[in-house]
């Protein structure tokens, strides 16, 4: 018997937003406070999982038409690219560059190539987690 999930769905709509915001926050703050690409990625994935829980897989696929394997690959490539960029400057692989900037709106901010690497990590984590969950979920 099918029951309706109105309560869950309504709550989800609000909550997903909160989770996503939190994920982005924790991702960016990672270099200075606890967090980082992993947790950010996993949180994002759990937001999507929550959506899938509340609604159903086809609907979510329609809303988020992402091929997660490709997402994983792209994440990997970004991470590798960041790491190998240093080769161009003839310094050891993985040498990061960063500097502190005084941006008008954000105050003193550091721009760090490690962040790019972390984006790679983030994408891979989201991609893989969702690949796993989605393929199992879809399996008959």
């Amino acid at each position, binding site marked *: 018997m099918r029951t309706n999930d109105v309560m869950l769905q309504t709550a989800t709509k609000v909550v997903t937003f909160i989770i996503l915001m939190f994920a982005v926050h924790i991702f960016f703050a990672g270099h*200075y*406070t*606890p967090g980082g690409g*992993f947790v950010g990625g996993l949180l994002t994935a759990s937001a999507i999982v929550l959506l899938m829980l509340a609604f159903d897989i086809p609907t979510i696929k329609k809303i988020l038409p992402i091929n997660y394997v490709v997402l994983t690959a792209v994440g990997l490539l970004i991470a590798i690219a960041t790491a190998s960029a240093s080769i161009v400057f003839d310094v050891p692989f993985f040498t990061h560059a960063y500097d502190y900037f005084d941006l008008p709106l954000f105050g003193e901010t550091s721009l760090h190539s490690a962040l790019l690497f972390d984006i790679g990590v983030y994408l891979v984590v989201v991609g*893989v987690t969702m690949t*796993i969950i989605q393929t*199992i979920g879809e399996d008959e």
Partner: protein
Amino acid sequence: MEIVMSVAIGLLFMAAVYLMLSKSLIRIIIGTGLLSHGAHLLLLTMGGLGGTAPPVVADGVSVSDYADPLPQALILTAIVISFAVTSFFLVLAYRAYQELGTDNMELLRGTEDYE
């Protein structure tokens, strides 16, 4: 504290091994989960539990107060890897059950000899 932790870790390993020796696949997988918990805690313990501040730079905390960050980083890596492996194992178990119709390892002996 480290002594108590060591004993607890020993218990975790013990339980893990005991579970892995049973016939039921799910118990085995749970066993592997416990095993990696044990290994991670061991890594943490071996780094020393003496730190009084999280390894995040903060004003007014002297360098010696930070907990050892290196084991933490290693554990993080290990956690993620064991997560990947566990999920793989779970799906494998799921598929194996679908195809072979049992989760009893004794029935999954296979044919070692081709006599």
